[in-house]
């Protein structure tokens, strides 16, 4: 039963698409260059276009482009918009309102004037685009005493490692570029490259605030990587695999074979040890995202802008905007590990019989369920971060080392006991 729009997977779809297009092109070339004509030598091009390696290569390019556009452009803009709109409402104001009618050139301005539309009272989705355009136009200043090479490397490192997460992060069982066996390990490894970039950025800026910010980032992220990984170990005991798609599929089965519990899926959050692990993971991933209670690396009150102080223009845009991409990846991880990923209620699939065979048609496809859950988790993050003050560096490390690590160890032990003796204890989980 597949409920995903992208099925069986993104690469296969792209390969069918690219192969079809290339086949048409190839046929065209072959038809235009019949044997015996003066351009017969071009027939080789027609055969070349349907070479399997070329189709595969182009299919990969298309698949990666689709994924990056989807994740790094569309989803990034969407969650930035959601955050800005949501916390604006928390703060009793409208928030961003630039819309398509705010564009100051034809045909939008003309149309807005003609229809008497308010130009700056839209939904505000285009505000982040406008900010990006503004940042691109700005000058890129490199401080005179900065370590130039490292200063320029750090944003690239942060941005590229963040995009790399989406090589293995699925949006549904099919909507993923590479379904590798150890994808969870890959995601977490790429997730923790960015702190290195932050440390480099802080050091290379040759600025006291940046240096302190970079050092804080190193200390904080080191302290929070460990509980993060330990909390995942508890999940692994239950799921027995490091593949995120398999982890989700383990959560799709009902909680019980019969009775009222059979309507509840066996999401990890509904089990006792995983709930402890979830609490740890939630806090730790919040620290990894550098959201407000834990955003001490760029505590703007005391460190100006922390490690991003010396960055200007689009370089600042990169290091600043990619926090949201990390937030997206973090929320997606929470959903995958604890909220059953893209599995939605069962009534989402229609199975009409067409020609005697049942064809599943998802009414609300898995991608939509997944995004809804991700947005929900992300909004909880936003809600928390705009209603609490910032924690101090020593307190943050205390929470990490003294509270989260013991808790995650507890989660592992309880999960191990339940996994070993659960069947004898009445199926407790």
């Amino acid at each position, binding site marked *: 039963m597949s409920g995903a729009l992208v099925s069986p997977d993104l690469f296969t779809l792209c390969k069918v698409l690219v192969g079809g297009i290339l086949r048409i092109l190839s046929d065209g070339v072959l038809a235009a260059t019949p044997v015996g004509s003066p351009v017969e030598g071009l027939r080789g091009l027609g055969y070349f276009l349907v070479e399997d390696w070329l189709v595969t290569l182009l299919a990969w390019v298309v698949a990666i482009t689709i994924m990056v556009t989807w994740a790094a452009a569309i989803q990034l803009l969407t969650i930035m918009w959601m955050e800005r709109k949501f916390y604006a409402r928390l*703060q009793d104001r409208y928030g961003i309102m630039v819309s398509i009618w705010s564009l100051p050139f034809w045909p939008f301005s003309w149309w807005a004037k003609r229809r008497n539309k308010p130009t700056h009272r839209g939904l505000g989705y285009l505000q982040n685009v406008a900010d990006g355009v503004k940042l691109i136009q700005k000058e890129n200043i490199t401080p005179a005493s900065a370590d130039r090479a490292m200063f320029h490397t750090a944003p690239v490192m942060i941005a590229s490692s963040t995009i790399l997460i989406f090589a293995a992060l699925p949006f549904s069982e099919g909507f993923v570029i590479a379904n590798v066996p150890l994808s969870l390990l890959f995601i977490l490894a790429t997730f923790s490259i960015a702190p290195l970039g932050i440390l480099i950025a802080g050091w290379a800026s040759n600025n006291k605030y940046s240096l*302190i910010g970079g050092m804080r980032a190193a200390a904080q992220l080191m302290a929070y990587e460990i509980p993060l990984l330990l909390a995942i170990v508890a999940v692994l005991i239950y799921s027995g695999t490091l593949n995120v798609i398999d982890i989700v599929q383990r959560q799709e089965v009902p909680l019980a074979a019969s009775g009222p519990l059979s309507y509840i899926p066996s999401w990890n959050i509904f089990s006792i040890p995983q709930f402890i692990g979830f609490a740890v993971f939630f806090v730790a991933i919040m620290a990894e995202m550098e959201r*407000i*209670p834990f955003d001490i690396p760029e505590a*703007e*009150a005391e460190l100006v802008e922390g490690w991003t102080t010396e960055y200007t223009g689009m370089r600042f845009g990169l290091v600043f905007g990619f926090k949201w991409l990390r937030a997206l990846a973090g929320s997606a991880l929470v959903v995958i590990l604890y909220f059953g990923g893209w599995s939605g209620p069962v009534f989402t699939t229609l199975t009409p019989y067409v020609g005697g065979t049942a064809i599943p048609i998802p009414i609300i496809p898995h991608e939509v369920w997944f995004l809804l859950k991700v947005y929900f988790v992300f909004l909880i993050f936003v809600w928390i971060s705009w*209603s609490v*003050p910032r924690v101090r560096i*020593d307190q943050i490390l205390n929470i990490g080392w003294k509270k989260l690590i013991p808790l995650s160890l507890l989660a592992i032990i309880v999960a191990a006991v339940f996994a070993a003796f659960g069947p004898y204890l009445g199926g407790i989980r």
Partner: protein
Amino acid sequence: MAEFWVNMGPQHPMTHGLWNMRVKISGETITDAEPEIGYLHRGYEKIMEVREFQKNVVLTDRLCYVSSVTWSHAYALACEKMMGLEVPPRGQWIRVISLEIQRLASHLMWLAAYGPDLGLLTALLWALRERELFLDLLQLLTGARMNQNFPRVGGVRNDLPPDFDKYCAKIIKHFRGKLDEYKRLMHDSKIFRMRTQGVGRISAADAIDWGVTGPNLRACGVDVDLRRLEPYETYDEVDFEPQVWKGGDGGDSYARFICRFNEMRESCDIIEQAVKKIPAGPYRAKAPRRAEGEGFARTEDSRGEALFYVIGDGDDRPYRVKIRSPVYCTMAATPLMLRGNKMADVVSILGSVDVCVGEMDK
């Protein structure tokens, strides 16, 4: 890590105004601190010598731009004492009302600034939202939102507008509910208490020695409120309780926060009583153009004890004016509060002190 000095200022998000806090840090711990002030020095005491008594109110308004009325009132009070002038009762009551509204607006500005200091931007917008209401009241009363130019030597500029008591009652009723909201947002939050409790502690003896006054001294447990100790205007006729920290270990950022925060409730009480008790009559006495003698007035400003010392030599302008700014003295004590704390506590401490650079640099 080696120790080094970090400039927190003059252009830094921590400084609400133009000044520089140099802190020497070893790792994250502050080992020494040194405030550098004077960026905004405008030579107030000198400029005031060349302006007439009444015209100086325009200047004193700008001493602290978030607390204009209280400063102008202190100046007017000193001039009246020099001239031996008696302000009519209605004028005194109007002064009390405007002072307390101004104190509320000032404290709300402080609350608004303290939120982002701790990373809580929501507090900024919430507090500014309610500050708007009190600025509206001030605008109704004085005609301006900022730099009201309202107190006069001998009284106030104008009478209360019609239905002012109703507006006051309505806004204060609304504001009381909002205060509970702030409480839930700020000092009910565990993280807020983690950031403020036990941070920036100064003992009562030290605070007195260094000349700390106002809510910052009351947070150390010392019961000084000039509105009670040395009542000026009609403060002896209203019933309110000076907010003093009652717990054992005061003097930290949390105590300062609580004292200031609760002062807002007291100000609400005072306004409510004042609009009821205000008598009819004239609101301003005719002030002499020239005066000779010495006038000395100290009032409870929003930030501490404001003092004006005015000498007239028979001319129509003061011979000499001395201003004692509470923040100026408190600033001298900030290294004491800062030492030994973490770097992130600089904002938590200096935010709770409530710095206003305009009056500090004079």
